[in-house]
């Protein structure tokens, strides 16, 4: 029996197999309230995106022929939202078998078919920093992606030119995974305490430093001696060396004030000044120290109390940090929260009275700075990428509705016209019309992929707070 394709299905097929070239387009957005974030709010203003780049911002802009024109009268345009802590679009999250796994990279396991990409873009997100999990003191390298829904090549959703970043984790997670129980294929291994965490860090940095020196010495010698012997190749220490050279930005999952300061001490000893503390629920207690070090923080809007190390936290964290001069972002770390980061950021107005621009900065220019992509995204400025989100109602109001999202000028979310079922790959065998469960606002398990990872290493799934 032959299945002949209908033309609409064929069109769908064509759309989902578009190559890289199709991911930069033109659009003219007219007559909106433009929240630039870095240059104030512009009323009744047009934004022209050409070839994926913001070409002009002003009034009465003319659309080149054939370019889509969006009448955004009465609507709000803001820069595409940037989620600095996500676990979407990944086939696997935690290589939890070793406390140091700098060599692994999320780049290798990007999954462009993941529905989470679309669902976040339906909440205005255009860029996600999708990360290794928090099982290890030094985890794997993360990947900054653009929400190009419909792309089927993992390389096609990579944010070209975004700096490399790596995941560190302190506190209860790595000490529980490695040190406080016999699990997976062996008994407990260091670290079991926060003391151990520091030593694992120092040991990794020191070994990385010596590795780097050994290779530098070899390279110098090899210039004149053809019989110079190179040091043992070590993928892990290669990455540690790159971190020491400043080529990889450290993003460290952390909670307690004391461990936050501990890491700054270690980084200082190894001459590294760029650091973003992720979650950092107690960062507010050492805000002056962080500000002095130039450290950044990427925090939850209001998650607390699910573990002991977040028991003494406050939803005013983002506001306190902002008021003390620490560049702060609000992230989701959740496939549910990332669909309304505009609302998460707005909570900083209740918890600490941040202004509109300060609140919007938490999900735009600040995470852009933390990811090293502030020259391309994070605000609406001429020359930046055409990543914008259009809302009916001010994004910081509870009654707002995101209606359109563009990545590099390509429409990736359209509330009015998108089909209900936006899956790119459809399981050919699964039951149709099946209840699948939900991720809710308090779920601390990110995805089935993470559960599978944990089952790989640990006897039971009972401990679900890899967070």
């Amino acid at each position, binding site marked *: 029996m032959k*299945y002949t394709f209908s033309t609409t299905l064929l069109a769908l097929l064509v759309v989902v197999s578009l190559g890289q070239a199709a991911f930069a387009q033109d659009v003219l957005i007219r007559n909106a309230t433009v929240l630039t974030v870095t240059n104030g709010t512009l009323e009744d203003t047009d934004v022209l995106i050409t070839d994926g780049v913001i070409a002009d911002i002003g009034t009465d802009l003319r659309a080149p022929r054939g370019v889509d024109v969006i009448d955004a009268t009465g609507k709000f345009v803001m820069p595409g939202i940037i989620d600095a802590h996500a676990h979407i679009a990944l086939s696997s999250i935690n290589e939890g078998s070793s406390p140091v796994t700098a060599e692994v990279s999320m780049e290798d396991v990007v999954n462009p078919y993941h529905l989470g990409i679309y669902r976040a873009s339906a909440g205005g997100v255009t860029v996600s920093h999708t990360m290794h999990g928090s099982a290890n003191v030094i985890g794997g390298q993360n990947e900054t992606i653009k929400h190009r829904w419909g792309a089927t090549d993992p390389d096609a959703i990579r944010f070209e030119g975004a700096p490399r970043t790596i995941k560190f984790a302190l506190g209860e997670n790595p000490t529980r995974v490695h040190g406080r129980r016999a699990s997976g*294929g062996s008994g407990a291994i260091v670290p079991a305490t926060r003391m151990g965490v520091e030593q694992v860090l120092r040991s990794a940095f020191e070994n990385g430093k010596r590795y780097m020196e050994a290779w530098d010495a070899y390279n110098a010698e090899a210039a004149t001696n053809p019989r110079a012997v190179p040091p*043992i190749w070590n993928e892990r220490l290669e990455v540690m060396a790159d971190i020491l050279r400043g080529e990889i930005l450290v993003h460290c999952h952390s909670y307690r004030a004391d461990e936050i300061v501990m890491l700054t001490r270690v980084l200082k000893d190894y001459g590294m000044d760029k650091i973003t503390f992720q979650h950092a629920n107690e960062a507010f207690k050492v805000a002056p120290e962080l500000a002095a070090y130039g450290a950044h923080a990427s925090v939850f809007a209001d998650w607390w109390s699910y573990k002991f190390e977040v028991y003494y936290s406050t939803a005013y964290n983002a506001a306190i940090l902002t008021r003390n001069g620490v560049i702060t972002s609000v992230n989701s770390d959740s496939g549910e929260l990332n669909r309304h980061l505009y609302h998460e950021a707005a909570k900083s107005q209740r918890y600490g009275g941040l202004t509109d621009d300060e609140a919007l900065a938490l999900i735009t220019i600040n995470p852009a700075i933390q990811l090293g992509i502030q020259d391309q995204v994070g605000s609406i400025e001429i020359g930046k990428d055409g990543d914008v989100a259009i809302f009916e109602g001010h994004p910081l109001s509870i009654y707002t509705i995101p209606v359109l999202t563009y990545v590099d000028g390509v429409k990736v979310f359209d509330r009015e016209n998108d089909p209900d079922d936006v899956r790119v790959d459809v399981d050919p065998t699964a039951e149709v019309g099946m209840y699948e469960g939900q991720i809710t606002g308090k779920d601390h398990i990110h995805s089935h992929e993470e559960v599978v990872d944990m089952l790989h290493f640990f006897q039971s799934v009972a401990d679900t707070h890899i967070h």
Partner: protein
Amino acid sequence: MSKEAAFPRSSRAGNSRGLLWLAAALWLLPSEALAQKNSPDIPVVSTVTAIQNARIVPSPGQVIESGTVVFRDGVITAVGRRVDIPYDAHVIDGGDSLSVYAGFIDALSHVGIPEPRNQGQPESVPDRSNPPFERAGITPEASARTALDPEDDAVEAMRHAGFTTALVAPRGRMLPGQATLALLAGTNASEMILQGAEPMFFQFEGAQGVYPGTPMGVMSKFRQLYREADRRRKLEAMYAEDPSGLSKPPFDPVHEAFFPVIAGNRSVAIWADDVLEIHRAMTLQEELGFSMMLFGLEGGFDTLSNVAASGVPVALTLDLPDKPRWAAKVEADSLQRILDAYDDETRTATFRDVEAEQRNLESRQLWSRARYVGMAAAYHDAGVPFAFASMGVDAKDIHANLREMIGEGLSSDAALAALTTNAASMLGLSDRMGAIRTGMMANLVVTHGSLFNEDTKITMTFVNGHMFEAPASTGRTGSNSPSDR
């Protein structure tokens, strides 16, 4: 074997020809008892077989109606319309109802390596972050040859499905060892072994409970082994040339196993279970530069252009996704109507729309399944030559799956080529098998009816000239009564 030849006579070949024709007629009776394998205590009386009056397909697209093929000691000695049949041949008359094809070649599977019993919990190690190689599933130095067992159930099952040769991969996790070419018959493992390519087998299977457990861990570990092996290889060469002043280079069989790969003398055979694993395999290949063969590629329609452009030899999986449960109860023509009824304008606004939603989702699912089924045809249409791999598939499902693929647009010739000539070419066996030509190994499949028809049965398979008959009770889908011969 003809009854005539069982009792040797001294009459000249010419006189016995008439008798041979009589014997051939008598041969039309069921003759299980004469299968050589089943009765090892009966002495072998002839090592030459002739199949005559059969429709012979020497290679896809070529047909010899009412032809004859003769083979002696496992080698084809003659193929054609009019061929001299040696006097001592065991003659099989096709009665113009049998077809003969080159024996199928399974480009990759574990056939011949039985599944281990009692797997149990993997053993504990002192430090899971740094486990011994074997515990981590890293034994690239091992070989499938030492694990072969001709008594493995899969061997017989695959033979019944018409397969005579396979590239057999060892079982395990990420780097179980080297695959070996093997005949799907033998009284002991050594008889199965075919000399030839022994690619390093690699799959994205992490270890359980130890490093590396995840796909990204597996990829990093592969890079680590490869690059360190590269360093050691250069070091060993330098040391061998002149050791003075140098420490003895580190050695272990794991890294050593990579040397031929790095030198370009051995390929890496990678099993890609889904479209993302195809990307991961190609990423590693582009980074490290080894010679790669890719197997599986289930659901790989989205990467077709990448794969085509890369020129990597591929073998597609013979597996197809199960039909969804709801579709099993629906008539075939209704399925077509459901597929055609897909409406991308459908929106489910309220409870009133859930029925229409269900229909549309079913439609979409059928369309999705059609893509899987049509993938082989798509590869063919894109001009990408491919073989077929049976890893993970039950032998009894293979021909039903092939028929579905043909129903979805794969030509019979392309299917046959994938099973024979393309596979031989991919595995470096073109000089020995994959076609019915004088000089080639006598690996043949004999069917009653044209190969991919619904009610066709495979009646015999010849492996290196040895005959194996399909048992009456099993075999193919469709009728099975022996009188149909």
